[in-house]
């Protein structure tokens, strides 16, 4: 397989898309270099999917987060694969950041959840999560420009197939760094007897401090991973002005913004806010746009 053809994880992703939609046509040629995709309508329902272990579940979950609110039936999907790896945003991160973001857009309720049933590490995976999301007809516009202050820090330290002591050590090292700013820190330890093996060291704990600092410095109202999700949902909102304050735009987001323009003809008004103006952290970007008035065409009315 050459580098231009469809990768394993991409094939798995295509299969996932096929599962959640109805009437989409997918054709991949013999060499795997051309992909024809004719979109169908988002269907949803109760599904299961085995993700490719070469990318973590986060890769798949990110796109599902974008699609799930616009299904015909509420999505309830079990994804199997790698829950945490070094490349993609982990499931825990998405659970902690993306779900509150969705709630801002009016996608809330009991059925909105990400549940980690089993953890799985690369290279073999074996983790399992449940993602459920309700369906909405329209999204609310947001005015999300005040990030507020950090009141408390909660975290999860997980360990798989190593001594549970490892997790505790990680917690200790992380606390030692974070405590410089805030006393209210609680990090849960999540020790699972994983089905599949993977390796993990306590380096993670020490690097997590600076990482979170970096995010705080960068961060606006939405963390860097979910910037694109927030912008997409803003675009797909009603014909109202939405605003969100972001940290510096990630390259992914920048590319995403271009896609938004080519798909929806939407341009964002981008204003940079210097740290002096906002008092906190690094430079911020205020993104403003008018929604395109998208409404969920799949949802049935009775």
């Amino acid at each position, binding site marked *: 397989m050459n580098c231009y053809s469809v990768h394993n994880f991409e094939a798995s992703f295509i299969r996932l898309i096929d599962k959640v939609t109805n009437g989409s046509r997918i054709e991949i040629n013999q060499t795997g270099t051309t992909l024809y995709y004719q979109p169908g309508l988002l269907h949803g329902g109760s599904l299961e999917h085995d993700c490719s272990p070469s990318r973590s579940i986060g890769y798949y979950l990110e796109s599902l987060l974008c699609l799930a609110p616009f299904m015909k039936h509420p999505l309830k999907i079990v994804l199997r694969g790698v829950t945490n790896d070094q490349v993609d945003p982990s499931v825990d991160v998405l659970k902690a950041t993306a779900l509150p973001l969705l709630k801002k857009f009016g996608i809330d309720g009991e059925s909105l959840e990400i549940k980690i049933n089993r953890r799985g590490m690369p290279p073999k995976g074996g983790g399992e999560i449940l993602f459920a999301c309700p369906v909405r007809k329209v999204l609310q516009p947001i005015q999300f420009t005040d990030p507020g202050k950090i009141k408390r820090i909660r975290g999860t330290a997980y360990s798989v197939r190593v001594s549970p002591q490892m997790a505790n050590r990680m917690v200790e090292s992380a606390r030692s760094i974070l405590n410089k700013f*805030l006393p209210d820190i609680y990090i849960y330890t999540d020790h699972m007897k994983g089905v599949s093996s993977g390796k993990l060291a306590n380096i993670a704990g020490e690097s997590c401090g600076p990482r979170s600092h970096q995010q705080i410095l960068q961060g606006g109202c939405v963390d860097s991973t979910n910037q694109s999700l927030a912008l997409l949902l803003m675009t797909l909102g009603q*014909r109202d002005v939405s605003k969100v304050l972001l940290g510096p*735009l990630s390259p992914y*987001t920048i590319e995403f913004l271009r896609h938004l323009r080519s798909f929806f003809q939407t341009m964002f008004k981008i204003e940079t806010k210097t740290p002096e103006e906002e008092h906190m952290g690094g430079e911020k970007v205020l993104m403003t746009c008018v929604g395109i008035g998208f409404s969920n065409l799949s949802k049935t009315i009775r």
Partner: protein
Amino acid sequence: MEEKEKKKHRAKHSGPKAEKKRKRYLNDLGIGDEENARKRNPKAFTVQSAVRMARTFHRTQDLKTKKHHIPVVDRTPLEPPPVVVVVVGPPKVGKSTLIKCLIKNFTRQKLVEIRGPVTIVSGKKRRLTIIECGCDINTMIDLAKVADLVLMLIDASFGFEMETFEFLNICQVHGFPKIMGVLTHLDTFKNNKQLKKTKKKLKHRFWTEVYPGAKLFYLSGMVHGEYQKQEVHNLGRFISVMKFRPLTWQTSHPYVLADRMEELTNPEDVRINPKCDRKISLYGYLRGAHLKNKSQIHMPGVGDFTVSGVSFLPDPCALPEQQKKRSLNEKEKLVYAPLSGVGGIVYDKDAVYIDLGGSHAHEKEEEEVRPNHELVQSLISTHSAIDVKMASSKVSLFMDSRPLGSEDVGQEFVMPREERRIDLMTGRVRRKALFEEEEKENDDAGSDEEDDDEEEAAAMSEDGSDGDDEDDDAEEESDRELLREEMAVRRAKRLKTEVAKEEAVNELPAFADSDDDLEMSSEGEGKTAPEENEMEQDDDEEEENEDDQRTHEDESSGSELEAASKRVAEPKQYEINSEDTEMRSQISEHSLKRKAVLTTDSGNCTAEEASESEAENSSLDESDDEEGSHDESEAAESNRKGCQHTPKKADSIRQTKLQALEAVDDDVENLLREEDEYEEKIDFSADTTGALKWKEDLKQKAAQAFLRQQHSTPNLRKLIYGTAVEDEDRENEDASDELGGLFRVSRPDKASKQNANALDCSKFLIEKPQDWDLEEVMSSIRDCFVTGKWEDDKDAAKLLEEDEELYGDFEDLETGVVHKGKHAAEGDESGSEEEEEDGKMSKPEPEEEEKKKERMDKKRKLKEMFDAEYDEGDATYFDDLKEEMHKQAQLNRAEFEDQDDETRVQYEGFRPGMYVRIEIENVPCEFVLNFDPHYPIILGGLGNSEGNVGYVQLRLKKHRWYKKILKTRDPLILSLGWRRFQTIPMFYIEDHNGRHRLLKYTPQHMHCGATFWGPITPQGTGFLAVQSVSGTTPDFRIAATGVVLDLDKSITIVKKLKLTGFPFKIFKNTSFIKGMFNSQLEVAKFEGAAIRTVSGIRGQIKKALRTPVGAFRATFEDKLLMSDIVFVRTWYPVSIPTFYNPVTSLLKPAGEKDSWSGMKTTGQLRHERGIKLKQNKDSLYKPIVREKRHFNKLHIPKALQKALPFKNKPKNLEKKGKTPKDQWRPAVIREPHEKKISALLSALSTVNNYKIKKAKIKHREQLKEYLKVKQKEDEQKFKRQKEAKKKIYRILGQREKKRQKSSLKGSSKGEKST
């Protein structure tokens, strides 16, 4: 006498005075008003019944909430588009007359013929677009969708007509616009009473149809062929104060009611193929929602298109400027109707006709309609060919900038081609801004050379005559090359971080508000203050090198020239050799041109530049621009030439040119040089950015940008979206890539290739995280935590203080500690102190003011708090929601208010209220050829994926007034969304288990489901169906109405299918059945299925048999008979024909536009062709002949008989048979004597009988006679008695009278006598 006439005082029993008195009186008594009564007698006011109370409460709440509408965000623009007034009615009811009268009423103008919509200014804040709607159902449907107000004309002398009701029904389906009825022909009534009665009758009927209390207007009589002025005036007043409710479909979709059409097709194409698809532009006010470029639209009656271009034009019928006066003056009463020939000008599809009407007439008109005339004049001039128009038009993007002409635009189009040249041999993009040093070095070197070539080539054409100098300069040139390369390497190492930064800056030119369209001109000046500073810090050598480098990287002809002039500013490296006068003039022009360019970008100008540009002679600007285009062509040409020359020669030529430039520009720029120096350097750093450069190495750049964050404010918008002209550039580029006009070289640029292969991951990994152990780095985020510093308005300590100030002292009730208001105490103290100080300083006024301010603040805060508390008290969920919507609406309005229209359009699209020009390509030629302005042209914007087709599920009900029932699989014309189309619906009904069962016909008075293949339209959209749109029928035309429920890509409608079979072998409860299936496989599929006989015996399919094929074993609950028929009930999915045929009524030739006919129903076809349906013989009705049924005797087994109780036992009493002969009685034989006797006896008895009979008859007659006589006698007797009685009573009466008389005269006497 006087006393008597005086009126007596009458005390007031009602009215305020009486009330007052009564109150006083009651108060005096001590039983005051109701409140007092409540106090006095609380029992009387208690709740009598809790249930009743609850009920009344519920009722009031119900009534209250019933009035609520779901609050929606008010998205109406500040300057709304004209209100669409549709005038409908049956023919000859007076529609055109009314429109003319209304126009005359508002504008004092008389239109001769009305074609298409007419826009007029009706008031200070309102414009109207009036359009007439004919009786063609297509027109009615289209106009009902865009109408804001419907004037429904009704001929009172005739009454309601079908058209009226049809239109009302159409309106109901597509959102209900405001409807106002207008009764005309009221002068035909001679009898006033009749008139009144008719009015009342019509009014009430109208009310049931619209809503009770709907306004119905009366237009009595005509005067000189017009309605009475006062009545029209009143109608106009009603229209101009009317309020409108937003309709869902209209507010969620952009739409344009086009009032002008123009054909833009290349005439040559038309000449070659008269039937080729056309390119047209349509003009009109944008309504509804924001329209984005390249979005999909639907033109009802034509089809779906993609907008190929939108632009907004100055409002041809603008509202008056805001003034504080009550009415409009004559100048402001505008009318705009390009199709109708206002001011004698008629716009046709491809021509403008001017109706002169004699020389004098035109003059008069000119004076009369001056404002309009002006407007029209401008429109005529704009109506010239598109390129001419483009050439003449000038747009000024910024207030103080030079207006941009088409030359500038042209420049913009051409320039990028030169900027981003692709080497055909290698497929390599020449201009790059890379960050890795190795790449940089290589590329620099490479590009240097190439650029040199280019410049040389460019120079070639200009100074071909200067070939003499080449030898001298060749050496110098080569030396310089070497030096430069060396320096490039050195510098690349030394300045690697800095360069990276600068490069990044190049990508993100300066200010956030710089406009894209100006990028080309502004690029040269794109820079930031910090950068400038940086540059200043660099030592001279570096500057030189860099500049040098940059000039060589430069590619565009424009910037090339700049480069040329730049050389002059450099410290003298070369000697001045030649002074060519021709060159001088040319170059001075170039330098001027550069400045002219500078002047155009007002946004990015620094103060220095501004002053510079002011210094320039502005009159030169235009000529310079023209020069620019020349230069470009020159450059392009020279490029081609340059390839043929040897590099050396080219080098030398270039060198000479440069020298010349230096020499010449030296003089020109002498004055400005000093202040320019820095800027120019930076100019060149910016110049290196190609228009498409932003694409390369985005990720790295973004990462760099992030690291660089504090130093500059990057123009993120440009980084992300590139430039607005970028798309066009790409197109140009593509065009240039075509090889021999046949093949296109598709060459993905390097950057996108890299991106495609990069890891697709949203995680933002920072390669070089900051060192978080450092204190200053840590402190940068310290304030992000609650433990950090808060903003002033949120700081807890401060808030607490404020609270204290507000509330002052209070006592803690639990502890009993009294808290003293700090402020008050302090105030006193400070006050005293202040006083002292005041005495010293003698500054009482500011202190006083401060105090006052403080007090005011306090007051305000208190009031705010009170307001908040008070309002919150009865704020309901509804109020909150409303408030939220209101806030959103305000935000929507305010967000882009301060931006100019060009930028605004990019962010939010074209906003409603703008007068837009929409270009559409690939329009069928029939639309243009058969254009008829009487038919409305509507451009309806489609939402996302509304242009797709799929299965649409509806809830449908046949209209009660439609006479036929609808049949599944018969084509039906639907009006849904913007569209009218023919499709084949399938009707179904949902069973209790959710199964969608196919119906053959629509139910009579019930909803049913329907599914069809057609355009996807949002759920909840209403639709109506008609069977045909052609011709007129006396019957009601709307066949069905309903609403969209669901959209999907698959359907689940099933119809019942019964498979029958026959037993061929019967055991007890098991039977073998054949004839139901055709193979074992089929049977296998149905194993376990429930089967049944016609007689009702249930069973199950068990297993297939080997022979005969398709037979199976089945078990039943009872034994079958051989005559039984067995069947299995199955559900067969129905496929829906994918038939979607838009009604293209506007493509029909003029005069036939109402005769569109699509697919015909089978019934119609059969009728037309006289094909009789071949009926199944079994389905025919025949007289039923029933055979007499013969039942066998009931047989009860003996054992059972025995067991039965006696009463149920069959009673075996046999019938009495014939009496046997032996038991017969003997016959009597008489003797002759006896015979005689008996004969005599019988004869005698006969005689006797006869006698008796006779006597009886006689007796009866006698009796009759007697009764007759008796009756007579009785009558006479009765008569006599009556007379006697009469006599007696008369006498008695007379006596009575007498007695009464006597008693009256003297009672005593009378008494005595009796």
